[in-house]
């Protein structure tokens, strides 16, 4: 059987770690950041692992032998064995298959909802902080009002307005998560806009939007990236909660969140493989994400380069 994923092939495809230490400049902030990122071993490991998980998710139909939805009630729950590497759940569905299919939803929700929250949060926070004064006050109070509303109600409202689909779930989650991001960015911007290089840019006649885009936002990237890597696990777990309420992923489709919440009840039935493997997958992915996020933050700071 060829269900095995060829890990070594993926590893080989990554760029070798660069040992080019010259100060000679690259072409852009991003090219430089990439060069520095490749020097950070943990970040590269994290990136490779994430690429691996993402490829498996993308290629799920070709890599799995069993169906994620077909039940085998006669088989029932069996512990890991030669045929079902990670065992089966109480309905006789192969756990590995369900985890792989679950990664599609979970990664999507992680990436899309976080992107939505970063996009809204950075823009809102940057404008609020940069403009300042009454506008800032108004924007922040509005945010606090939203913040005070219960999370579930907000998601339900968004889902009702947009219609119920898995993609709207991503948007709804992002539309909730941006609030903390906006506050973090605003705080950063308030201190950044007092820097002399902002004054210098203003004194050379640069347009306000260009100042926000080119001078303010890049300087907030560090905390934004760190917080974004924390947002990913948060939205993955929130998706599980919403799915449990029937607002998110519907059975028989699975996500890591739903698998874990199903697994919790299976603990009492002494079927630990139902919770251990989804948790392990989630954990390793989040760990890889944090390594990568950390490396990215360091790489994006031109001063952090050791050369």
């Amino acid at each position: 059987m060829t269900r095995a994923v060829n890990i070594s092939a993926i590893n080989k495809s990554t760029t070798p770690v660069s040992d080019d230490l010259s100060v000679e400049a690259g072409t852009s902030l991003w090219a430089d950041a990439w060069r520095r990122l490749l020097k950070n071993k943990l970040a590269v490991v994290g990136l490779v692992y994430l690429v691996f998980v993402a490829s498996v998710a993308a290629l799920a139909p070709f890599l799995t032998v069993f169906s994620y939805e077909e039940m085998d009630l006669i088989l029932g729950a069996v512990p890991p064995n030669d045929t079902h590497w990670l065992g089966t759940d109480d309905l006789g569905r192969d756990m590995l298959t369900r985890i792989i299919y679950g990664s599609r939803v979970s990664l999507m929700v992680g990436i899309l909802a976080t992107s939505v929250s970063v996009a809204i949060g950075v823009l809102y926070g940057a404008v609020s902080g940069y403009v300042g004064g009454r506008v800032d006050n108004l924007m922040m109070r509005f945010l606090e009002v939203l913040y005070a509303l219960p999370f579930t109600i907000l998601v339900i409202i968004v889902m009702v307005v947009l219609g119920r689909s898995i993609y709207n779930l991503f948007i709804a989650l992002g539309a909730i998560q941006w609030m903390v991001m906006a506050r973090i960015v605003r705080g950063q911007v308030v201190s950044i806009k007092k820097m002399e290089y902002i004054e210098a840019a203003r004194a050379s006649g640069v347009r306000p939007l260009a100042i926000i885009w080119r001078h303010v936002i890049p300087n907030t990237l560090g905390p934004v990236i760190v917080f974004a890597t924390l947002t990913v696990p948060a939205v993955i777990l929130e998706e599980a909660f919403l799915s449990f309420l029937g607002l998110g992923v519907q059975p028989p489709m699975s996500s890591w969140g739903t698998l874990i919440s199903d697994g919790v009840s299976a603990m009492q039935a002494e079927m630990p493989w139902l919770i251990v493997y989804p948790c392990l997958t989630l954990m390793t992915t989040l760990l890889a994400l944090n390594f990568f996020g950390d490396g990215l933050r360091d790489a994006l700071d031109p001063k952090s380069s050791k050369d």
Partner: protein
Amino acid sequence: MSEALLQVKDLKTYFYTRAGVVKAVDGISFDLMPGKTLGIVGESGSGKSVTMMSLLGLIPQPPGKIVGGTAFFDGVDLLTLSEKEKRLIRGKRISMIFQDPMTSLNPYLKVATQLTEVLFEHERITSKEARKRAIEALEQVGIPEAANRIDHYPHQFSGGMRQRVMIAMALIAKPQILIADEPTTALDVTVQAQILELLKSLQKDLGMSLIIITHDLGVVAGISDEVLVMYAGKLVERGSADDIFYRTHHPYTQGLLKSIPRIDNDASELYSIPGLPPDPSKLPAGCPFEPRCSVSKDVCAQVGAVPVQSISANHESVCYRPEGGA
């Protein structure tokens, strides 16, 4: 006499704070001739920088407000322009360099990006052409290997080199007026001299006018055609550099000159003007310098504007003391 390039009359910029009205700039007037250098001297908080910020429209409003005055630059009053019109002048026709080169460059952007940004903002120009101009500007301010260095980040430059980059940034659009706000304060002495030399030679080459703001009389002495001494937002004394240094009239200017440490002076204690600058929201009713003045008389504390004395053709002093001192 040729026409002044910049003519500031009775400029007043006040800040409305909870502690009261701060008259940061209170009735400053000066003329800037084409190709000449004006030095503005004063202690911290005397309103030097606020004067310049007012001209460029960089005063945060509120709390700041330009209450009165005019500032004619090339026939237009800078103070009445819209934000957009001011933006087109900033960096293109009047540009400014700041005190601290360590924080005046964005650490996230390459020098090339920051230099060309000014050009893209003011001219229709291809990126190739902009880059060429940026390299030229860096060469002009004496940065070696400019073509290479242009792709470096600010932290890869020393303080003096960064100030050169700042000057290049200010000059790249070929402005008519360059305002240098304490350009050498954050630099060490040898570098200070280099930067001043550079400013002087660039001014000659480009034929622009220069306004140099400083609290260092030594800087002013070497470079200025005309000197303005400010105290608590008001003009104190005005004249040529020679007038200010050799025919000093105002007690405050005298105090400033006396407090320059001299290498040939063995005195164990350095001279300083007694007292502190007044709280800008509670200025004395009469002459603002009266409480610290060593030669003050009763009349000085009286309510009302202090008369402007004409010492010679271009030398004025705002003091009750008769000409020649008493």
